[in-house]
């Protein structure tokens, strides 16, 4: 058993302190609430940091300077944007399906936040180390289809409706190869628990053993979070902003928040499954985790400024005729490889 350090120690210290002041039955629930607070802190912070990061990265790739007026190096730009969005008028389009329109941004936020429950930020630092960890992530993250369709349908706007319909087509198509690419990792670990998956990568990262799965996962993840080159859902030059067209102010901000929360989420899953999670030399585990996630996020931003947007028929063909067979082949290769390895050892 490895010596436990890092975030877990802090949590234990906190638990001790709480134990002095509170009756025993309240300690667990207050620890849970503190953890939830930390998770929501991370979600809000990632949105603030990633919006700034995205703008700076795209500026860098286009030889611009990006935001540089608000605060040093424009660091406070996102904060300013947040206050701006909060103080904007809330306009509901005429003839919209009122309740669906109101509920869509809220419902979109729930799966985005719920996915954070199973991320192993550090050794033992998992909010809920479910025995079905990765399966839970897949199940929760695919719920994002519904609010997109709701927003598209309820807006009483043809662009929004087309965007919503496209979301369904895209997310359904890329769900299957994504799930199958993760399957290879589950086969090698023999468990869906996130901490087991990270522990299995102590010596070798799974990107070495599962390179095909990693490539398929990254492509499908880009499509799942609707980022370029798979941003047909909100392709600005075709359908304004897709399902978000009719949202203003804070409701629009909630869509944005969920989008960046999802970007962080798929990067964290890529880190956990393929890049060894929090394993790394010298630095504390959580620093490694966040560094690897930042690297993955940068990769997704890099894609955006490298590849042109696909056409919808190309998108469907890529998903069903290239990525799905590739993911199935990967499962077969993994199975054969593991069988031979077992026979030899």
């Amino acid at each position, binding site marked *: 058993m490895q010596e436990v350090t890092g975030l877990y120690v802090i949590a234990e210290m906190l638990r001790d302190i709480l134990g002095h002041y509170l009756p025993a039955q309240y300690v*667990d629930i207050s620890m*849970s*609430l503190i*953890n*939830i607070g930390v998770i929501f802190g991370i979600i809000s912070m990632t949105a603030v940091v990633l919006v700034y990061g995205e703008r700076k990265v795209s500026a860098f790739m286009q030889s611009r300077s990006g935001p540089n007026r608000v605060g040093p190096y424009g660091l406070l730009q996102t904060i300013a944007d947040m206050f701006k*969005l*909060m*103080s*904007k*008028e*809330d*306009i*509901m*389009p*005429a*003839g919209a399906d009122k309740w669906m329109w109101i509920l869509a*941004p809220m419902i979109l936020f729930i799966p985005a*936040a*719920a996915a954070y*429950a199973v991320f192993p930020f550090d050794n033992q630092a998992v*909010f*809920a*180390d*479910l*025995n079905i960890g990765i399966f*839970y992530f897949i199940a929760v993250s695919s719920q994002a289809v519904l609010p997109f369709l709701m927003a598209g*349908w309820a807006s*009483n*706007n*043809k*662009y929004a*409706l087309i965007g919503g*319909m496209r979301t*369904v*087509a895209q997310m*359904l*198509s890329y769900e*299957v190869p994504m*799930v*199958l690419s993760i*399957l290879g990792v*589950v*086969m090698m670990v*023999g468990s869906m628990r996130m901490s087991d998956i990270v522990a299995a990568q102590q010596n070798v990262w799974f990107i070495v053993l599962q390179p095909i799965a990693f490539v398929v996962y990254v492509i499908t993840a880009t499509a799942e979070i609707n980022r370029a080159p798979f941003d047909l859902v909100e392709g600005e030059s075709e359908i304004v902003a897709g399902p978000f*067209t*009719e949202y203003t*102010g*804070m409701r629009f901000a*909630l869509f944005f928040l969920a989008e960046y929360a999802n970007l962080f989420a798929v990067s964290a899953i890529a880190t956990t499954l393929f890049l060894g999670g929090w394993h790394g030399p010298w630095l504390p585990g959580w620093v490694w985790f966040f560094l690897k996630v930042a690297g993955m996020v940068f990769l997704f931003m890099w894609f955006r400024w490298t590849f042109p947007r696909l056409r*919808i*028929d190309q998108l*469907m*063909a890529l998903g*069903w*005729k290239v990525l799905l*067979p590739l993911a*199935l082949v990967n*499962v077969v290769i993994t199975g054969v490889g*593991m069988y031979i390895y*077992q026979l030899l050892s």
Partner: protein
Amino acid sequence: MLQEFGNVGLLLIVALVFPLLALGTAFLLRPRDPGVEKSLPYECGVDTVGTTWVQFRASYFLYALVFVAFDVETVFLYLWAIKFQELGTFAFVEMFIFLSILLVGLGYAWKKGALEWK
């Protein structure tokens, strides 16, 4: 394990409250100045023609059918994947049977043109 799922439930409740808090803050801050022009659907400045909720051909319902079949089968594959190492030859042979059923299905859908966007 029950406590873990309880934690997840607690997270879901907070996740529901969080957007309400954000929207509540915005509700206090934002101005109110409704107008007819403002609430028209934004379609690039052109007045909308006809109703939005018309019947149109959703060209992907065949994809949706294929998706349902594949998604259900991947659920079974996950159970099999966890026990792959312990079951040995049995799981290995079964993999080929199960995956070939999947591949035949995919090939059939492909050949029938269900994977073409029309």
